[in-house]
C-alpha cells in the first residue's frame, strides 16, 4: 500500500460529510442498501489495512464479525447488558481473538494462511452453535434497541471513517513502511531490523477489532440472532472479493469495490434470486482476468496515461 497524502484526507472529510446526508435523501430500500454498503466498506477497509500491504489473504472476517454480533446478542438478551458496554466488549474480544490467530499463523504463508483462517472461522461458528444449543438453551438471541437504520448507518459511517483515518496514519508511519517491506520480502524485512511478527500481529489485531465492532453495530438490525447467520462464511468471501475488486493497493480501494458490487448483487438477487452466487464467481473471474489490481489499478493507469499526454 502506498503512503497516503494530505489531499486524500481532505477528500475523505468531504465524502464522509456528504455521505452523512444519505439517510435524509432516500427511502427505506436505499437506506438499507446504504447500511450494507457502509458495513462492507468498514469491513473491507480494515481487511485491506492488513492484507493490502502483506498480501496475506484472510478469510477470518466472519469470525470477528460474528463475535461482535454474538456478544451483543448474548449480552443484551441473556444478561440485560447495555448495547454500548457490549460494543466495547466486542472490540476487546475481537482484538484478543485476532491477536491469538495472528500469533498462531505467523509461520504460515500463502495458501496455508488462507485455509487456516477459513477453517478457524468455521470452527468458531460450530463451537458457538454447539455451546448455544447445548448449554444456553435457546437457539436464537433477541436484540431489542431503539436504533433505526439511520442510526446504524451513521454508526457504520463513523466506524468506516475511523478505519480510514487509522489506515491513513499507519501508512505514514514506520509501521506502515514496515508492512510494505514485509509484503515485498519478509526475509529482507527481518534483516533490516523489522520485528515482522509484531508488525503483522498489530495490524491483524486492528482488523479483528473493527470486524467485531461492525458485527456489534449491525446486530440490532436483525433483532433475532443465531450463530449460523452472524458467522456465515459468505461474509468473509464478500469482504475479500469487494476489497480485491476495488484494489488492495490503496486505502480507498474497497470503497470503489463495494459500491458497484453491492448494486449488481442486489439487482441480480431481486431479479434472479437463485443465480446470485453466480455474481460471486463472475466477480472472481473479472478480478483475475481484467482487474488484477482492482479498479484502483485501472484508475491509476488512466491517471498516469493522462499525465503523460498533457
Amino acid at each position: 500500500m502506498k503512503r497516503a497524502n494530505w489531499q486524500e484526507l481532505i477528500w475523505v472529510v468531504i465524502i464522509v460529510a456528504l455521505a452523512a446526508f444519505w439517510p435524509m435523501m432516500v427511502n427505506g430500500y436505499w437506506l438499507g442498501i446504504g447500511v450494507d454498503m457502509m458495513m462492507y466498506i468498514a469491513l473491507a477497509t480494515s481487511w485491506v489495512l492488513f492484507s493490502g500491504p502483506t498480501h496475506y489473504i484472510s478469510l477470518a472476517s466472519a469470525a470477528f464479525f460474528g463475535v461482535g454480533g454474538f456478544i451483543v446478542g448474548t449480552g443484551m438478551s441473556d444478561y440485560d447488558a447495555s448495547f454500548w458496554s457490549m460494543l466495547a466488549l466486542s472490540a476487546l474480544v475481537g482484538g484478543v481473538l485476532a491477536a491469538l490467530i495472528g500469533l498462531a499463523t505467523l509461520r504460515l504463508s500463502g495458501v496455508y494462511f488462507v485455509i487456516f483462517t477459513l477453517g478457524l472461522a468455521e470452527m468458531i461458528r460450530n463451537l458457538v452453535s454447539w455451546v448455544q444449543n447445548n448449554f444456553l438453551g435457546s437457539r436464537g438471541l433477541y436484540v431489542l434497541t431503539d436504533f433505526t437504520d439511520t442510526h446504524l448507518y451513521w454508526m457504520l459511517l463513523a466506524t468506516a471513517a475511523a478505519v480510514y483515518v487509522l489506515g491513513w496514519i499507519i501508512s505514514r508511519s514506520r509501521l506502515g513502511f514496515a508492512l510494505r517491506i514485509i509484503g515485498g520480502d519478509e526475509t529482507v524485512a527481518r534483516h533490516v531490523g523489522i520485528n515482522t511478527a509484531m508488525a503483522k500481529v498489530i495490524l491483524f489485531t486492528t482488523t479483528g477489532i473493527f470486524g467485531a465492532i461492525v458485527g456489534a453495530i449491525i446486530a440490532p438490525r436483525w433483532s433475532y440472532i443465531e450463530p449460523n447467520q452472524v458467522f456465515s462464511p459468505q461474509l468473509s468471501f464478500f469482504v475479500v472479493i469487494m476489497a480485491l475488486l476495488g484494489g488492495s493497493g490503496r486505502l480507498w480501494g474497497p470503497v470503489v469495490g463495494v459500491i458497484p458490487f453491492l448494486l449488481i448483487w442486489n439487482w441480480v438477487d431481486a431479479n434472479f434470486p437463485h443465480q446470485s452466487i453466480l455474481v460471486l464467481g463472475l466477480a472472481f473471474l473479472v478480478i483475475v482476468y481484467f482487474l488484477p489490481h482492482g479498479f484502483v489499478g485501472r484508475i491509476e493507469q488512466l491517471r498516469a496515461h493522462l499525465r503523460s499526454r498533457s
Partner: protein
Amino acid sequence: MKPSGTILSVKNVTKRFGGLVAVSNMSFDVAQHEMVGVIGPNGSGKTTMINMISGAHKPSDGRIALRGRLISDQQPQNIARAGIGRTFQLVRLLPDLTVLENVMAGAVYGHRRRWGRDAEDFAHDVLERVGMDAMSDAPISSLTYIDQKRVELARTLAGEPEVLLLDEWLAGLNPTELETGIELIHALRDEGRTVVLVEHVMDAIRSLCDRCVVMSSGAKIAEGTPEEVLSDKEVVRAYLGDDDA
C-alpha cells in the same frame, strides 16, 4: 586503518540440515576494521555460515558473539539492530518500492532508527556513495544487475552496520562492472569497515582481504593471509577437486 580487537567471534559452529552437515565445527574471529575473506568451492557451506551470523539460520551447535555478546540465539531483526548488516548471494530488493525507498528500508529500523526527512537525506547520501543517487526515483525493474547489487549494498550500508557481510557480491558482473565493484569495496575498506566477504574472484581476494578462512565440505581447512592460504596444498587440492575453481 589497522585491525584491532576482536568484534565478531565464531566458535565451534555446526549446522545440520536433516542428515546433511552443511557447516561443521567452524571457528574464526574477525577484528575491528578487518576484511576477512571466506572462500571455498561451491557447496562448501559459506552462505550457510553467513546465514548463521545474520540469524537467517540458527546454528545446530556452537556460539557466535558480537563484541562478546551472544547473538546466535537471536532473531535476525535483533542481530541487524545489534549492528550486523548483509547482502544476499542472489540480490534481494523490494520490487514495489523505488530505489530510494529500498535504501530507506535499511535506515529506518536499524539502531539509529532514522525517519522522515532524516531517513530520506541519509538514503540519498548512501546512494551517492555507491554511485546510484541519480537513479533514486527509478523503479527496481529498470536496474541492471550491478545497479541492483549497488542498491542492495546501499540498503545494507544505510543500516550503519558495525560488521558487514557480503555474500559473493562480485559474482555475475562483467569485466567492466567488476572493476567498478572492486573499487567500491576498496572504498569500504579505506573507510575502515569491518567486512566478512564470501568471494570467488581471486584478484579481489588478494587485493582486498587481510585474512582468509578457507572452507571445504563445511569445515575450515586453512586460515591466514591470502598468499598463505592460496599456496596451501590442501586448499589447492580442495579447489582443483572442484570444477568451479
